[in-house]
């Protein structure tokens, strides 16, 4: 989730009220952002991904100001009509690579270092969150005085795109930028394999940028001298772009800018639109539904007030909510219900346990597992609790046994890259990490193991198994079989046992247990080579029992 750093002074000025520190902290948390810390003049908050409009000081202040009741209701922003040549032409070639753009012009901004920082932060945060790292949405901001309107959005072969990118002093072509420029390399995957790359060109044929990668050095840099800017958002879904643009222009308007429309002409679709569109979106609201979900009995006028605290207007006559054009998170009227709850204050709800009778019930197999564990505890064993994810070294190599196991596709480290297909290696690993602790070390571990089985929904079948591991100077086959027999007696189970071979165990000292010809357990003494591999200087006798299969047999 994106974390933003807000300038407290700027924020307070925008909010229009200075709150005591503790109250400020509380209000920020209860508004629905995760306050990380306030340090001096810096407020660091985590903005939830459904509220990209709060990624700027301006957007954040707008929400907070309504919430604490300073300036409630829908904010109105004036959008001036497009002047001559305030036009962007979308040419056919770009429709194949990055088909849409939403643009605007904002004038009369007074830039200083602080404002430039703020704008860069919004741009970056929108790129990461809403833009999914520029994939869905990329933003370009250009000083108006450096470019000539109208603008053309088109696409060309990479070799034919030539300009000096930002943070470079050499002219490069499209391919060179992706291969050599640091920003180009970072985002190269977004254009890789495309025949043509998108570009914005001005009326004098200067390349402004190659979205979503980089702007031109000549035209794409805002400075303290900049007053008016041209803004473009490019991507694949016009609605997303338009929302993003609304977030940015309203923030700029809150900085004092004046918003101007632009005409967007899509040549291929033969469609003309204007952007930005800041008119509120209307939603029907069912007050009864809201009250039912909240467990409250609010009147329409109370709900209207609460909606206004969250920056909406409510039209009582038509029973409609007017949603600001920069809000991206309204999918369903339940979203209003939540905002009403936030405005009401989560802290003001009285928790209630309803008088509904239902009958509690354990899962029978879980109960069985718990019984087995208690029997083993009664035999003096200590339970351990190991991870399901392990590695080939411990699971196979050190065990002298090639067990088939499922690998993870994207493990962070080799140490944890394999789903265990038996439990015992984990138990022996535990013992290898406790050689300096008091003996005897008689332990058990119960848990899930993973095997490939095509018929399952995922192709993976999970079994619960238990491993009992006796590690002490007298550990031998007799001791471990005593434990096994005690468990079987407790469960009232008769079994067959045959001598078997398994390279993790001493030859001639391993029994294979089965019931009705279904193999259920191995009992034996661990191969001293395994002990040596794990650095254990104490004999181990162990069994591993499949509880899932055992339970299924018992049920039959």
């Amino acid at each position, binding site marked *: 989730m994106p974390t933003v750093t807000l300038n407290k002074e700027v924020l307070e000025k925008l909010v229009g009220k200075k709150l005591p520190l503790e109250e400020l902290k509380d209000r920020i948390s209860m508004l629905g952002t995760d306050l990380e810390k306030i340090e001096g003049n810096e407020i660091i908050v985590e903005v939830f991904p459904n509220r990209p409009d709060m990624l700027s000081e301006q957007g954040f202040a707008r929400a907070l100001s309504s919430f604490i009741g300073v300036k409630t209701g829908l904010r109105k922003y004036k959008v001036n009509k497009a002047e001559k040549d305030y036009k962007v032409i979308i040419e056919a070639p770009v429709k194949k690579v990055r088909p849409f753009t939403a643009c605007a012009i904002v004038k009369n901004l007074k830039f200083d270092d602080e404002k430039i920082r703020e704008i860069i932060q919004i741009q970056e945060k929108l790129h990461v969150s809403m833009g999914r790292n520029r994939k869905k949405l990329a933003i370009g901001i250009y000083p108006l005085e450096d470019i000539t309107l109208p603008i053309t959005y088109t696409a060309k072969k990479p070799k034919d795109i030539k300009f000096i990118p930002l943070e470079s002093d050499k002219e490069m072509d499209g391919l060179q930028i992706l291969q050599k420029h640091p920003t180009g390399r970072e985002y190269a995957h977004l254009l890789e394999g495309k025949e043509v790359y998108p570009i914005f060109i001005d009326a004098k044929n200067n390349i402004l940028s190659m979205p979503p990668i980089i702007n031109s050095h000549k035209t794409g840099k805002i400075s303290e001298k900049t007053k008016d800017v041209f803004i473009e958002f490019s991507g694949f879904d016009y609605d997303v772009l338009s929302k993003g643009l609304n977030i940015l222009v309203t923030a700029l308007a809150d900085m004092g800018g004046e918003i101007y429309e632009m005409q967007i002409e899509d040549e291929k679709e033969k469609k003309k639109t204007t952007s930005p569109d800041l008119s509120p979106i209307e939603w029907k609201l069912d007050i009864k539904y809201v009250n039912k979900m909240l467990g409250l009995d609010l009147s329409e006028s109370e709900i209207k007030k609460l909606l206004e605290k969250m920056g909406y207007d409510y039209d009582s006559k038509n029973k409609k909510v007017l949603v600001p054009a920069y809000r991206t998170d309204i999918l369903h009227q339940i979203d209003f219900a939540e905002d009403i709850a936030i405005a009401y204050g989560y802290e003001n709800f009285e928790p209630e346990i309803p008088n509904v009778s239902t009958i509690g019930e354990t899962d029978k197999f879980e109960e069985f597992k718990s019984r087995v564990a208690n029997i083993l505890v009664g035999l003096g064993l200590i339970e351990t609790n190991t991870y*399901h994810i392990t590695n080939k070294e411990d699971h196979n190599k050190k065990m002298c046994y090639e067990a088939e196991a499922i690998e*993870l596709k994207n493990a962070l480290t080799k140490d944890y890259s394999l789903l265990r297909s038996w439990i015992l290696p984990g138990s022996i690993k535990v013992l290898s990490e406790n050689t300096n*602790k008091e003996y005897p070390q008689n332990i058990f571990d119960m848990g899930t193991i993973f095997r490939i089985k095509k018929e399952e929904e995922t192709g993976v079948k999970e079994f619960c198994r238990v491993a009992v591991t006796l590690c002490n100077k007298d550990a031998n086959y007799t001791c471990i079989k005593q434990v096994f027999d005690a468990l079987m007696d407790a469960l009232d189970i008769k079994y067959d046992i045959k001598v078997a071979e398994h390279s993790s165990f001493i030859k001639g000292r391993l029994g294979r247990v089965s019931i009705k010809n279904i193999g259920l357990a191995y009992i034996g003494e661990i191969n001293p080579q395994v002990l040596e591999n794990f650095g254990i200087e104490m004999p181990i006798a162990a069994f591993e029992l499949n509880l899932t299969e055992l339970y299924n047999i018992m049920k039959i």
Partner: protein
Amino acid sequence: MSEVKDIIKTLHPLERKVVPLLKQSSVFSEILKKSGLKDVEVMRALQWLQGKEVLKIKEDVKEVLTLGDNGKQALEKGLPEKVFLDTIKNKAVSLDKLRNENVLEMQELNACIGILKGKVAINIGAGRIISITDHGKQLLESSSLEEKLLKKISKEEVDISGLSDEEKFAFQNLKKRKDMIKPVLKKDWFIILSDTGKKLVTSNLGSEKTIEQLTPGMLKNSSWKKKEFRSYDVKINVPKINRGKRHFVNQAIESAKRIWLDMGFKEMTGPMVQTSFWNFDALFTAQDHPVRDLQDTFYIKDPEKGKLPDDKFLKPVKQTHENGWTTGSTGWNYKWNEENAKENVLRTHTTCLSAQTLANLKKEDLPAKFFALGRCFRNETLDWSHLFEFNQTEGIVVDENANFRHLLGYLKQFFKKMGYEQARFRPAYFPYTEFSVEIDVFHPVRKEWLELGGAGIFRPEVVKPLLGIDVPVLAWGPGFDRIIMEFFKINDIRELYKNDLKQVREIKEWMR
């Protein structure tokens, strides 16, 4: 005197053997020798007696002498200078010859000549011929101070601090020579009798026929009736024994399960490997949501993909993502891809079990409440506050009349039962809930709010495609491990699954 009598009743057979010896000696080593017992037995008896305030044991460290290898040899064959004198007592011999014959080692030989010359026991003439003097002959007949000391060391313990002047002189001489004597530190114990102790050692301890261990034999022949039982020191420290034990995290899990059962919830279980469909898509998590990235979720290499459920669920879920279907939602407005939904993952939350439960639930079963407590996985680097495997406690309440206040009610109740009196709820965001709640509890020791996990009401976009109708479903899934760390006083989350057997043995039982 009654005090002494009471003590006598408590005497263990070992103590009975030791007490009379205390009359004659106050040194542990001497008592040990006289008792004929093992040293641990004598020490244990003395410690018990100390516990009864009969005596005090004081440690005493002294330096005693032992024989070195050469010292032992000298004791057997005589000191080298004696051997030397013996060789020349009948006729003078040249030094060269003595050297060639290897009567003594070169070093010893030179030392002997030095010593004997100093004592005027030999003469060295021309051609380095060595002859014995009369004084030398006298020396040969008598034993030297050094020899006397060596003999004494071989027979008894010689304490350096107790040497006579003559012995001290011999000690200094021997110390200069190679491997003759070795001073070693020796620990011993002094026994100081208390007033009671002094009375006790002179008392008649009476018959030893008190009963120690009651035996089956005594019961059979009723012999116990004629005897008295020795009284025990009930305050005695006994050796620790280890017991069988459930792992402490599992103790807490069982206890939490019981809480949900008490509250009328039914247990859900299910596999840890799930398709993305159940882990994400059924929970209205858009296919480009960052949580589905490789750096957050573990994907399976092989089998990479699983099977999708039949159209009954598949179509509504797909349409809900794309355009909201009949849920009254706009959906996410994108083209939903079946192949992404097939990808196998290690479940990132137990919420996938809730989704499956909703899919299997019939309308006539409502209202219904379910819980799960199970392992989940996130592709995270291990550190003090992150595990790649963790437990989650999941719950859903499917009830036509459920509302936000009920959600807070259930959560508050659960956390209260888990030991947190104060719980606070903050707005949060999860793709599949709206309302969304973050639960903080007040840490009674650290005096601060701890973030313990998420909850909410499932979005209609989750419920309707699975259940077929839009009913409020309260849902929560706080991480369980953090909830229990406070009780066990564990600050580093990795310690929960470290399996340090000392920790597992000694950590307190879950008591909430």
